[in-house]
């Protein structure tokens, strides 16, 4: 009887873990994409628009810095060196910053400089904003 209960519990845990929602893909639109395997950098230029979950990130240059951990490719950071607009579609919130950096380890994007935040029709300025984007760090086979 105890064995049956244990089997039932373990099968429930297994089914629950497999039913975890999958992270949606990151979709990036741009005019130019350069993959540099030697430097482990992916550069997007032109009209860049990155879509991930509720967020749209709009800029003219974006650099994805990767590093290789054995066979795996891991996301180190995403740099937005020029003016970047981060729109949270769900919260109707927009952040415009002169530059931003996403840390692959923490999953947080940090914006610095003269930042304009627009929320619910209100506009205010600040010098530092952190947003949790939660892009997974594991990016296997991104580089050939």
């Amino acid at each position, binding site marked *: 009887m105890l064995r049956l209960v244990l089997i039932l519990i373990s099968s429930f845990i297994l089914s629950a873990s497999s039913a975890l929602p999958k992270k949606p893909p990151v979709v990036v639109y741009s005019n*130019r994409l350069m993959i540099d395997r030697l430097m482990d950098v992916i550069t997007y230029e032109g009209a860049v628009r990155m879509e991930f979950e509720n967020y749209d990130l709009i800029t003219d240059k974006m650099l994805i810095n990767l590093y290789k951990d054995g066979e795996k490719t891991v996301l180190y950071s995403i740099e937005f060196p020029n003016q970047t607009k981060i729109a949270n579609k769900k919260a109707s919130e927009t952040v415009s910053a002169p530059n931003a950096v996403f840390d692959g380890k923490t999953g947080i994007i940090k914006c610095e400089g003269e930042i304009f935040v627009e929320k619910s029709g209100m506009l205010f300025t600040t010098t530092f904003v952190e947003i949790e984007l939660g892009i997974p760090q594991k990016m296997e086979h991104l580089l050939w």
Partner: protein
Amino acid sequence: MSFCFLLVCFVIYTSVKKKPHDIKNNNSSTETKYQKNHTFAENADVLVDKLTFASKTSDNDSYSIVADKAYKVKDGGYNMNQIVANFGVGANIIEVLANNGYYNEAKNNLILSNKITGAYLGYTLKAESLELEIATKILRSNSPVFIESEKISVSSDGMSTEGENKLIFEGHVKTRINFDQ
């Protein structure tokens, strides 16, 4: 009676004489169509079945180009049909298939067109045109390109390579990155 016989002979002769003219017209339209697809040239003089080129680059990477049919053209190049090309990159191989192509042995460049598919390290490539400079390992495409693997897909209006380590996509570029969870 003999007049009737002569009349019948004349009618048959004129009808037979007309036929080559019709065939010539059909041929010229076919030639024009093929020329656009780099499969047949006006000055093609030699037809070769199962043409194979196999050699090595200066980096000692081997390559081979096999065509079901090839026509040697005036400039010394070959217009080819049903091409299978393999290019060694270190220990790995890039395999490219195309319906049509042109290979210039002197310049060592291969221009592929019409339903191009490629495979390399789990990536698949689809393109409408592709130019490969084999000696310098430069790859170029000025038409829409689609590259896909299990984790990433890229579509663009064109692509090119810079050396062995840089891959550039241009035009309307769309990248899709899937995650393991």
